[in-house]
C-alpha cells in the first residue's frame, strides 16, 4: 500500500537514516585505519605532537585498547570523535577538528559565490543550448563549455592572476590583504563569528574587510565557475533535449502553446532532475576542497590542507577529512533528495 508522506516527515525520515549511514561510513574509515600498526593509530588520540615519544605511545596504545578487537577499538574511537577529538594534525599544528573548522569557511566562501553561478547560469545556458540546438548559440555555448572544462585550473588561475592582479592590480591572491588580515586576526574591533570574512565584515560593521575578502574571492570563484559550469551545461542540455523529444511536449505544442510556455511549464521541470543530482554532487565535491585553485591563489582552504596532509602522511588529518567528506556528501544527498520532492511531487511517495 502506498502512503503519502508530508515533506517534513520525509526529511525527518531521511535525517534518521543519516545516522546509520554516517556510522557505516565511520566504521569503514576506521576499518581502513586497521591496516596501520598500533603505533601509527596512536596518533589519532594524541593532542600534543611533542608527546610522540615511544613511552607515551605505548601508554596511548594501552589506554585506547589499540591491541584489542576491532569493535572495542571502534567504540573507543567513536567516543573520542563524538567529543570532537579527531586527533592531532601535524600539518596544521592543531587538532584535526579545529583545523577543519578554521579552513572550511575559506572553501565555503569560494563555493558560496561559485556554486549559484555554476548552477543557475549552467542551467540557463544548457536549456538555451538545447532549445536552439545546432544554432549559433548552441555551438558557442558548447564550445565555451568544452574549452572551460579543458582548461587546466592552475594555468587558467595563473593567467587570471597575471591579468587581474599583475597587470591591473585589482584582485590579489590570498584570502585577505596583509593589513586586513592583521586587523582581522588581532583587532578587538573584529570578531570572527563565522570565519566567512565577507559575512563577518558585515556583522562587525567593517565593510572594508568584506570588500577586501570579496576581492580575493572573485578569481578563485571564477576559475571554479568557468571550469565546472561545463558539466552543468552538458547535463542540462542533454536532459532538456530528452524532455523536448517527449510525447507530451509534442502534445503541448499541438495544443497551440507558445514555445516559452512549453519550455517553462512542461520541459524545464522535467529536465531539472538530473541537473539537481549533478549539482548536489558537484557542490559537495567543491566543498570538500578545490585543491589546485586554493593552492594557486594561496587561499588556505580545506583542499590545500587535505592535499598537504596526504602528502605528509598525516593519518589523523586524512581520516578526519575523510569523515568530514562523508558527512558533507550524505548531507548533500539529503538536500538533493528534498529538492527532488519539490521538483517532482511523485517522489514524495514512499
Amino acid at each position: 500500500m502506498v502512503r503519502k508522506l508530508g515533506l517534513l516527515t520525509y526529511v525527518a525520515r531521511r535525517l534518521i537514516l543519516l545516522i546509520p549511514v554516517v556510522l557505516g561510513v565511520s566504521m569503514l574509515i576506521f576499518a581502513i585505519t586497521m591496516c596501520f600498526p598500533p603505533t601509527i593509530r596512536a596518533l589519532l588520540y594524541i593532542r600534543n605532537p611533542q608527546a610522540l615519544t615511544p613511552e607515551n605511545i605505548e601508554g596511548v596504545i594501552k589506554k585506547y585498547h589499540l591491541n584489542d578487537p576491532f569493535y572495542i577499538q571502534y567504540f573507543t574511537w567513536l567516543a573520542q570523535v563524538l567529543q570532537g577529538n579527531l586527533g592531532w594534525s601535524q600539518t596544521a599544528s592543531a587538532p584535526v577538528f579545529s583545523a577543519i573548522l578554521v579552513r572550511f569557511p575559506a572553501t565555503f566562501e569560494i563555493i558560496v559565490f561559485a556554486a549559484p553561478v555554476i548552477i543557475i547560469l549552467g542551467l540557463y545556458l544548457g536549456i538555451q543550448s538545447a532549445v536552439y540546438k545546432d544554432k549559433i548559440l548552441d555551438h558557442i555555448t558548447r564550445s565555451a563549455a568544452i574549452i572551460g572544462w579543458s582548461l587546466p585550473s592552475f594555468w587558467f588561475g595563473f593567467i587570471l592572476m597575471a591579468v587581474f592582479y599583475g597587470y591591473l592590480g585589482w584582485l590579489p591572491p590570498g584570502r585577505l590583504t596583509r593589513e586586513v588580515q592583521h586587523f582581522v586576526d588581532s583587532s578587538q574591533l573584529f570578531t570572527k563569528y563565522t570565519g566567512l570574512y565577507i559575512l563577518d565584515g558585515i556583522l562587525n560593521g567593517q565593510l572594508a574587510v568584506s570588500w577586501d575578502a570579496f576581492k580575493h574571492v572573485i578569481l578563485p570563484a571564477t576559475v571554479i565557475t568557468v571550469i565546472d559550469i561545463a558539466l552543468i551545461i552538458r547535463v542540462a542540455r542533454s536532459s532538456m533535449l530528452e524532455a523536448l523529444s517527449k510525447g507530451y511536449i509534442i502534445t503541448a505544442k499541438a495544443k497551440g502553446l507558445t514555445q516559452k510556455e512549453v519550455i517553462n511549464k512542461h520541459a524545464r521541470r522535467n529536465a531539472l532532475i538530473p541537473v539537481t543530482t549533478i549539482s548536489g554532487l558537484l557542490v559537495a565535491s567543491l566543498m570538500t576542497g578545490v585543491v589546485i585553485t586554493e593552492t594557486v591563489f594561496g587561499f588556505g582552504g580545506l583542499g590545500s590542507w587535505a592535499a598537504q596532509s596526504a602528502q605528509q602522511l598525516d593519518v589523523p588529518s586524512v581520516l578526519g577529512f575523510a569523515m568530514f567528506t562523508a558527512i558533507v556528501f550524505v548531507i548533500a544527498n539529503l538536500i538533493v533528495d528534498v529538492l527532488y520532492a519539490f521538483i517532482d511531487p511523485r517522489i514524495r511517495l514512499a
Partner: protein
Amino acid sequence: MKKVVSLALISVFLMLGSLLLTPAFAAPVIKRPMGIYVATIEGGVPETVDPAWCYDTASAELIFNVYDTLLYFDGESLEHFIPQLATEYTLQEVNWTSPEGLFCRYRYTFKIRQNVNFTSGHLLTPKDVEYSIERGMIQDRCGGPQWMFYEPLLNSWGAEAWNIGTATVPGPEAELVGKMIDHAVESNATHVWFNLAFPGPYAPFLQILSQSWSSILSKQWVNEYVIGTLHRPEWPGDWPDYTSWLAYHDPAVSPLDDPSPIMCGTGPYKLVILDYAAKYWTVERNVNYWRGWPAEWPAPPYPSDPAKNPTPAGYVDTATVTWAYEWPARSSMFLAGDVDFCAVPREYIGTIVGQPGLRCTYPLPVLAVGSLFFTFDVDPATPYGTINDYGVFTADGIPRDFFGNPTWGIHTRLAFAYAFDYTTYLQTAFLGEAIAPATAIIPGLVCYDGSIPGYTYNIDKAYDEFSKVPGLVGTGFTVTVTYNTGNIPRQRACEKLKEGIDAINAKYHTSFVVNIVNIDWKPYLGAMVRSQLATFIIGWLADYPDPHNFAFPFYHSEGTFAACQKYSNPTMDDLIKKGIEESDPVKRCQIYHDIQVLARQETPSIPLYQAVGRHFERDWVVGWHYNTISPGIYFYNLWKWYYVPHSEFPDYPPYDYSNRLPEDVNYDGKVDMKDIGYTCKSYGATYGPPLHERWHFRCDINNDRKIDMKDIGFAAKDYGKTSSVWAPPP
C-alpha cells in the same frame, strides 16, 4: 556555421595566447612604504619562539627581531661585533676553581647596558643575562643549541654527559651539574661574567653570544607573567636546591610556545601575531627601542669601528613573514610589488631576474650545506613508513637498523650514496651554481681538505653494495625519504635518489622502493629529533665559521644531527674533541683531515649541495646586507626608498653602487634597450610629493628626483655596458 565556430575558437585561443606573450607585470609603485612583507617557502613555519629552544633559521629570524643579544654582528663581518646589551667586555686568565671543583682558566666579563627596558616595561639587569643563559643550559632540549654553552662553560656536550637522572629520581650527579651551571654564569649589579672550564679562551665564544640562543629574557617577566599569570612550568631562576632544575630540563615543549607563543624582548620589534593557521607572523616597531628610530648608534669602545656601522636612516613600522603561498602566488605578489623579499627557487630564477623593480644580489658566499642523513636506529613509532625489528627485511619496510647495522649498515649507506646522480642534480636543481662536497667540512672553512674524493653516481656499485647486505636483494625494501615542505631543491634531491634506485630496479630486476614524503618544518624537526625519519634531507648553516661547528653536529655522537641519527663512533668523538682543543693550526688541520677521511669512510650522511647564495628583493628596499652566518632578515636595518630619498641623506648611501650600473634599470646585468624603454615609460614622473604614479626610482638615474631626458641620456651613454656583479647562470 562551421566558419563561425572556427572563428570563435581561433579568437579565444588568440586572446589567451596574447596574454601569455604580453608581459603582464608592470613595474609597480612602492606599496606599504612603512611595512616589509616577506614571502618565504611554504612550510617555513618557525618551530619556536623560545631563544633557548631555537636552532633553526625560521625561528631565529623572528627571535632576532624581538630579542637582543649582548653583541651583534657588525654588518657582513664574521669576526667584528657591535655592542648591544653589553657595552664592553674583557677576557682574563683567572685560573679559578669553582666551589664544586670545576677548574676555570678563562673568564669573559661583560658590562651590561643600563636604562634598557623590555617591552613588558621591566628594566634590563645583569640578573636577566645570567638567568637567560642558565635557563638555556637547564633546558638543554634534545637536538637544541645549548651544547655551544656546555662546551666552553662546562667542557662537555650537555647535561646528559653526567648521570643526572630524572626530575622524580635525580641521579648522583644532578646536584653537581646544577652547581656547575649556577657558577658558570655569575652577575653583580653591573656586570655578568662567564667562567670557562674549556682549556682555552674558546675563540667562537663571542660569535655564540651573538646568535639567537643568546637572546636575553626578562627574569621578572618570566616570574610575573609566564609563571604567575599563565601558570606555565618555567624555571623561575632560583636555586633553592641543586636538583629541582631537573623539572625544567629537556621538556617536551617550551613553556614559551605551549599552548600559545609568547615573546618579550628588548629588541626593535614586538611580536603581534604568530598565526599557524593563516601561516604568518607579524612584528611591529618597538617605539621605545633603546637604540632609537632612526638609530643613533653609540660609539663602541670595542672592538668595532663605528665608521663601518651601517646606520639606518629610516625604518619600517611593521614586518610580516608569510609561508602561506606556493610559488605561483608568491611570484605574482613579488612581481606586483606586494612582497618585498621573496624566496625564489633556483629553477625559477629565469622568470624573476631582469624584471623591472627586482634586485638579485649574487653571488653570495654560503657557509651552509644540505645533506642526506641516515638514521642508524629508526624509532618504530614513526608515522613515516614501516619500520621492522632489527635485521628483519620485508618488501614493505626496512629494519630499524637498515642504515646503522654495525656489520652491513655501511653497505646500505654507500649504496644510497652511489645511487644519487650528483652532476645532474646540481645542474637541474641549482643550475650548476652549487657543488657537492665530500664531507661536512665544506670549502670556505679552515682545514677543508679538497683532496678527499667526493661521491659519484654509479648504479652498478650501488647494486654491489646492496648485494653485500644479507637477504636484502631478494626481499627488497621500502624506505621513506623526507624533506621539509616547500624546499624545492630538497624535493628534487629526493626525486633524484628515487630515480637512481629505480634505475637499479630496472637493470637488476630488484624491488627497492623509495617513497618521498614532505613534512612541514615544525613537525619535520620534531620527527628528526625523535629519530623517526629513516632518511632525511636538511641543511646546516654555520653558527660560527669553524670546522668544529660542522664536525660536531654532523659526526659527534652528541651532535645535533648525529644524536638524532643515533650515529656514534668513539674514534670520531675523540678526534672532534682533540680538534677543538688543539691550538696549533697545523696539528689542528691534521686532525680535521683525519675527521674528513673517517667521515668519508663511514658515510653517516651524504653532503648533497653547497650552493652559491642569491637574494631577491624589491629595489625600493634599502639597508639589507648579507652576513654568512646570520639567518633571516633583520628589519631594524631596513627602510624603503619612499620614506627617505637618498639624496637627502648623502652620508648614508643606501647601498653600494660601486659594483653596479645605475643605468641597469632592470638589474639584468647589462644596459640595453629594455633599460632605455623602462626609463622612457616613466618619463615625466617626479618624486613629488605626491609621488607620481609612474615614478620609479631606478629610472631616476641621476638622482635629481625627476625622470627626464637626462636619465634617458645616461642610459643611452652607457648602452652595452655590463655589470661585474651580475652573472647569469650557465
